[in-house]
């Protein structure tokens, strides 16, 4: 177990290092002079020189990278070019809103996805199964922002159930969370269905039925536990795409999270902030992945061995 954990942490660290290189490289990949782009055409030569020195862009590339890395490790992600505040402060301020949205979305996704998946598997090849799976395909085909707009049009504009976008209270949270959740549920429902269909053919399920257990006990206690492992993995992986999806949804509902921050940072070409956000999201993702791996081996201890063999 310890060795397994160390190994996961090790490969996580390599990915983190790579992400730091990527976010560092961002500013150097910009065609032309990033300083000129940030300051605009009217900047004086002194201004350009000052910012170049402030960002350390006049030093050798490798020196720059190690400086960047040592700052990052100390929690210094630079200074936002537009607001003049530390990038980390800007991110930390916005992060809770994004977590709130993503977590609520995930809960909704898990609830809808697992319910639909189990029902579709139980009533395999019926109209219910067909409708559930068609909805799942539709779910991956609808632009998330359009679903959000539709929900606003119907529930906010027409029925007036929810406040007009802009706040962060519970009522403001419902629609964006539902949008995210409905879309993220599609993958979960497909996987749950696939897992359940397989498990339901096993002998012990017949035994459970034969000894007179109720259908819900068979489904939830006996079958679902064993179909859950791939679902746990995908829930972990979904968190990344959920973070990505949040960016767009935040824009639709004017939700003041990391996504809105990223969009405005890119639009205003505030590169230190863009770099910081990329790095931050990468770190979060790696942490989640390590966590999922650990959780995985807790649920099914056999996996540990297999993974280790595969990994070396």
């Amino acid at each position: 177990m310890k060795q397994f954990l160390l190994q996961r942490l090790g490969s996580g660290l390599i990915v983190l290092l790579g992400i730091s290189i990527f976010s560092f490289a961002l500013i150097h990949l910009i065609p032309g002079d990033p300083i000129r782009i940030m300051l605009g055409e009217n900047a004086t030569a002194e201004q350009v020189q000052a910012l170049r020195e402030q960002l350390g862009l006049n030093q050798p590339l490798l020196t720059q990278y190690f400086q960047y890395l040592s700052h990052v490790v100390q929690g210094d992600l630079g200074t936002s070019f537009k607001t003049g505040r530390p990038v980390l402060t800007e991110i930390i301020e916005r992060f809770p809103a994004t977590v709130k949205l993503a977590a609520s979305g995930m809960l909704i996704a898990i609830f809808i996805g697992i319910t639909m998946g189990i029902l579709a598997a139980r009533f395999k090849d019926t109209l219910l199964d067909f409708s559930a799976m068609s909805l799942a395909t539709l779910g991956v085909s609808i632009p998330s922002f359009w679903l959000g707009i539709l929900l606003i049009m119907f529930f906010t504009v027409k029925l007036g159930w929810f406040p007009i976008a802009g706040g962060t209270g519970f009522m403001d949270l419902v629609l964006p969370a539902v949008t995210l959740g409905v879309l993220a549920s599609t993958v979960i429902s497909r996987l749950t269905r696939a897992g359940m269909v397989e498990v339901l053919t096993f002998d012990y399920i017949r035994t459970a039925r034969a000894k007179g257990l109720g259908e819900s006990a068979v489904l939830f206690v006996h079958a679902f536990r064993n179909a859950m492992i791939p679902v746990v993995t995908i829930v972990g992986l979904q968190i990344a795409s959920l973070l990505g999806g949040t960016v767009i949804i935040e824009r639709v509902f004017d939700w003041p999270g990391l996504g809105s921050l990223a969009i405005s940072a890119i639009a205003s070409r505030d590169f230190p902030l863009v770099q910081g956000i990329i790095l931050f999201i990468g770190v979060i993702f790696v942490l989640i992945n390590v966590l999922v791996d650990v959780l995985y081996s807790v649920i099914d201890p056999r996996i540990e061995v297999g993974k280790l063999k595969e990994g070396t």
Partner: protein
Amino acid sequence: MNQANPVLPAPPPVPSQKGTSRMTWIREDSFLEKLWRNPKARYSLGILLVVIAVGIAGPWLAPHDPTQPFYEDLLTGPSAEHMLGTDSIGRDVLSRLLHGARVTLMVAVMAVSITFITGTFIGVTSGFVGGIVDQVLMRIMDILLAIPNIIMAMAIVAILGPSLTNAMIAVGIAGIPKYARLTRGATLSVKSSGYVEASRAVGTSHARILLFQIMPNIMSPLLVYTTLQIGIAILDTAALSFIGLGAQPPTPEWGTMLSEGKEYIHDAWWLATFPGISITIVVFTVNILGDALRDIFDPKSA
């Protein structure tokens, strides 16, 4: 002759007989035949052909110029003159939608080409060469996979600057890591198959194995990923345009139209409705086709 010699066993049935009633160029077990027999593939291909036709003929079908404002018809709902209504500066929504079909298709094809060519190259190299090359390439892909697709695309747009072309490039590049991983997997499974080992044993060169054995045999899984990737590319490009990092006004792009429609959500439902329906229909059809192709190539997973 058979009747003359009853002792001989009956000749095997002539195999071509079953096929003669069909068009001869479609063999019984050919790919086209399988496509035709799968209802999902048949219908989705049919709809896609219509979409492509609209993409090509859109500018001629459109009743008005997509950028021409009708100042006397600002934000009017669907009517005989403007079948899908007009937007805030009086442009005809139907015309913009029809022109947008071309933009969407072109963007999807270009973005997916970038993903396909680069992703296949990296994946096949990684799987075929193996060793340290494989290790390094896949570690890089892992790193890139750690950043959500759309955020990666946003980062690339941040580098290149917001425009439709750059959004297309960004979406194409952002798709590469996952695609390369899948291609590597397919390459590995073909590489370890009996026929490749057999031809290696008789001394076939690497290049020949790569070109004539690996490539043709990974094409079917690649076709599935590529099809599904088209849907993702359309959604991501529209998303980038929606947040203002893709197509810039007045380009009639569906994502941009949705972004404009969102501003008038209280007054003009049609603005945000029709572009959304269009995107959903196209992506849904592409995804159904992808599913059908998967069923055809890999009947076990169905």
